């Protein structure tokens, strides 16, 4: 291995790292190793003085490689790469050791933590000497934007962008725009009609000259990368190639089907209905039981499918307020009826929703609490001499009593869940999903609408349950992010892609079917495989598949990773000079 001049920097991160890792010791030990020209430790490497320190050293000591041991590369790798650039060093001649998230924050034994940190630093040290300079491509950003999903979130984002004079392609799976909101009658907490603001929005979107709406269409495949995406879709058969620079995914949610809950008798008892079915009744304006009679007793059951380990662990967040909304509407329609709200916990947390709860509780609504951990309410057919059609057996935990709730109509507040086809869009756009198939944002706090794929944003309920204001907030946030990107004009894309060594590739074509992005094609006359760098997203699977070692996944080459392993598990060669010093 050729000699290189490496600078190693161990960050204290204030006390975050220093309190659990002996940074001085590590810096000292590393300093003794081959190829290490300088090893320092510093309070905050990411701070400007910290970066200047690197830049200064690179110039003074003619460093050709840099290792920083600090937080997760997912946080500051780019920061330090920039520093290298500023010092005139190719930014890929840099490696980061994660000694905060993976060491100081998760371990309690300082000695062991220090050992581990040292291992990670040595690994990075060994690896970095095999790094090669790579150039980033800078490409122009296409000012158009693709928005997947024509619900409240999607349309709001579309309208913002269009108003800013940018082209928008709005693709909606259903035949009409409006999404979930179109299914709702009133909106909580102020109980005004949804259509009063939805319809105008739909009209504005449809009529806007900068927005091209594709209804009844879905997106199967998206190629390209930030600034230059491509896809194909079209209206009534005639396909159209769309090119755009950003993607906003607003595919929304679907509603949980409560049939698995035998105890609620959904499907078996005609008057047990889901919240969405009830919304339909509300919109049609006549609330009737299956026998056509108005209900004398209405029970609303919360948390059907939500906050349940076996179905959805999460809280659907909107049902409680919706239930309160129903209680109010029902009281207004049936002043004399018995209204029973069977809840597990009242989570009316959005703005003005607690007030709605208080208001509702003065309207002769019977709130009954059950403990889902212990037992769920059980809906059963009532006897002929009962004054109601159904009876609900429940254990009411505020009184500790097993009680019977009379009901002619039972409304199940069913959970919201990710779209059935969430995975397809996720794959097309390169979004990661949580276990429950909601999309994962880039950072839960610091980057809530971006995704791990540059240029792709997620808004509204495809990211998790939320109410209309929250969805719109996200939509506008994403729109702002997109506009920022467009006004920047160009974007630099990673080139950590796969590359075929044509001297070695024997044309066995094992790699081709492995690529998820069809980025590898076979060149007949050269009898070698070729990688399309634009399509390649650099997963490296082809690299580990290629039996001849002809494919190198840049920045994650076999050599780089093998040397990382070596460095991690070996003490490392001490400089001759030091050996002499130490003997003396």
């Amino acid at each position: 291995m050729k000699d290189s001049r490496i600078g190693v920097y161990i960050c204290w991160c204030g006390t975050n790292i220093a309190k659990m890792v002996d940074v001085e010791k590590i810096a000292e030990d590393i300093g003794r190793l081959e190829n290490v020209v300088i090893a320092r430790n510093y309070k905050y490497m990411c701070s400007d003085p910290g970066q200047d320190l690197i830049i200064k050293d690179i110039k003074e000591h003619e460093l050709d490689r840099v290792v920083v041991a600090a937080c997760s590369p997912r946080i500051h790798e780019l920061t330090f790469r920039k520093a290298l650039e500023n010092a005139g060093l190719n930014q890929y001649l840099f490696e980061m050791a994660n000694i905060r998230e993976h060491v100081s924050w998760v371990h309690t034994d300082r000695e062991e933590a220090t050992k581990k940190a040292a291992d990670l630093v040595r690994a990075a040290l060994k690896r970095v000497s095999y790094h090669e300079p790579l150039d980033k491509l800078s490409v122009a950003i296409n000012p158009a934007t693709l928005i997947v999903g024509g619900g409240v979130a999607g349309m709001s984002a579309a309208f913002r962008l269009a108003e800013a004079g940018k082209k928008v392609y709005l693709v909606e799976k259903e035949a009409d725009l409006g999404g979930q909101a179109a299914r709702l009658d009133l909106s909580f907490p102020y109980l005004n009609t949804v259509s009063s603001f939805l319809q105008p929005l739909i009209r504005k979107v449809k009529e806007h000259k900068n927005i091209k709406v594709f209804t009844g269409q879905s997106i199967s495949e998206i190629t390209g990368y930030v600034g230059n995406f491509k896809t194909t879709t079209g209206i009534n058969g005639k396909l159209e190639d769309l090119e755009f620079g950003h993607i906003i995914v607003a595919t929304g949610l679907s509603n949980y089907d409560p049939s698995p809950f035998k105890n609620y008798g959904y499907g078996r008892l005609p008057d047990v209905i889901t919240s969405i079915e009830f919304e339909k009744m509300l919109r049609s304006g006549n609330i009737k039981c299956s026998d056509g009679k108005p209900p004398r007793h209405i029970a609303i059951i919360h948390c059907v499918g939500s906050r349940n380990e076996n179905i959805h662990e999460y809280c659907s967040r909107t049902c409680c307020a919706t239930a309160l909304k129903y209680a109010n509407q029902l009281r207004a329609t049936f002043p004399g009826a018995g209204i029973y709200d069977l809840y597990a916990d009242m989570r009316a947390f959005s703005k003005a929703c607690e007030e709605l709860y208080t208001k509702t509780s003065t309207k002769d609504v019977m709130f009954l609490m059950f403990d889902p951990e212990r037992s769920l309410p059980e809906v059963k057919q009532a006897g002929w001499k009962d004054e109601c059609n159904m009876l609900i057996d429940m254990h009411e935990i505020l009184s500790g009593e097993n009680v019977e709730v009379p009901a002619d109509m039972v409304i199940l507040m069913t959970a919201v869940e990710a779209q059935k086809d969430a995975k397809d869009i996720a794959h097309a756009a390169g979004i990661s999903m949580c276990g429950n198939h909601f999309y994962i944002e880039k950072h839960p706090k610091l980057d809530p609408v971006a995704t791990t794929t540059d240029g792709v944003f997620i808004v509204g309920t495809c990211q998790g349950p939320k109410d209309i204001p929250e969805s719109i907030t996200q939509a506008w946030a994403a729109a702002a992010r997109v506009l920022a990107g467009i006004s920047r004009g160009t974007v630099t894309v990673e080139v950590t892609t796969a590359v075929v060594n044509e001297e070695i590739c024997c044309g066995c074509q094992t790699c081709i079917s492995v690529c998820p992005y069809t980025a590898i094609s076979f060149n007949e006359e050269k009898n070698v495989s070729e990688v399309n760098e634009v399509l390649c997203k650099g997963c490296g699977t082809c690299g580990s598949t290629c039996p001849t070692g002809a494919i190198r996944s840049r920045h994650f080459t076999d050599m780089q990773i093998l040397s990382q392993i070596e460095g991690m598990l070996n003490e490392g060669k001490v400089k001759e000079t030091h050996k002499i010093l130490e003997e003396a």
Partner: protein
Amino acid sequence: MNNRIDTTLKADLKKFGLQSWNDCFHCGNCTALCPLTEDANLFPRNSIRTMQMGLKDKLMSGVDPWLCYYCGECSDTCPRDANPGEVMMTLRRYLTSLYDWTGLSKKFYTSKVWELGAILLLGGMVVLAFALFFPTINPELTADGGVRINSIMPLQWIEWADWTMGIIVAGLLISNLMRMYYKIAFGAGAVRIPLALYFKEAWQLAFHFSTQWKFSKCDGKRYWLWHWLLMSGYTIMFILIMVFLPWFQTEEIFEVWHPQRLLGYYATFGLLFGLTAVIIGRIRKSNAKFKFSHVSDWLFIVMLFLTVLTGILVHFFRIYGMPMATYYLYVAHLAVLVPMIMIEVPFSKWSHLAYRPFAIYFANLRKAAMKYHEKTEISLATT
């Protein structure tokens, strides 16, 4: 038993003075500070929740409302101003009406017309009685210059009237108590009570009745004192009149230290003191328990007060030999006393003097019975 949620009950309770039924959202403050709370029994929350859910059977078979002396702590500290104390008070009224088989109790509680009407009717009957029987008024004084009180009507007759009244009242009270007992002992969540326990726990009755022991556990000892004075005064007077009338209502005027007069004075003082305290309280609304006054509350106090007042006046007039005043006031005295006894004791507020100690008695019986069953179960398990 029927444990179906019933939203109509609260409407019913409104008539008994229920203000708001669902202000309480069960934070548990009241339970935390009420001295009557026991780990088994979330006092007074449990009753409130039962009321809210309209579980009538459970209410009837419970004794909780009777255990509460309305110290008012809960109402003072309730963050929602749900006024638990008053709810308990209302429940007591409601229960009283449930125990009463005649149904009059409900009428009196829920309609002023009925209550006032009944009072006037009875009062009128008393006056009428005097008028009709044309009493032989003998204005001449006794040797020591006192009024010949018994000359207005033979003491015999009064005594007979007393007895009949006592029997009626007792009959009503006892029959209602039986109903109460039935509900509690065989109602919801009833436990089989071995006979022996009834006797073992019997002393509770006397003890609690005479000492108001549980009340003394509540904060604010002075309320307990007033209540105790009032109660003891009333009881003594009640017994004197009902049982020892000939000994008590004599024409001869004894020395001041004579037990007849001492007892009389004590009773009067107790009543007077207790009453004034309560009246002032209710007027000033000085404490939660006085904040809300149901008609029945006022009526009772006023009548009792009038009775005491007239009684006192009668006493002095006769001592200082003022025949006519004595006679007229005596009639007035009885005209208030009779309806008060006849209505308040069996049907209304005053009945609690019977229900409460019994409730406590039953409550203890139940507890004892449970312990007993546990023990036997354990012994069964071990053998």
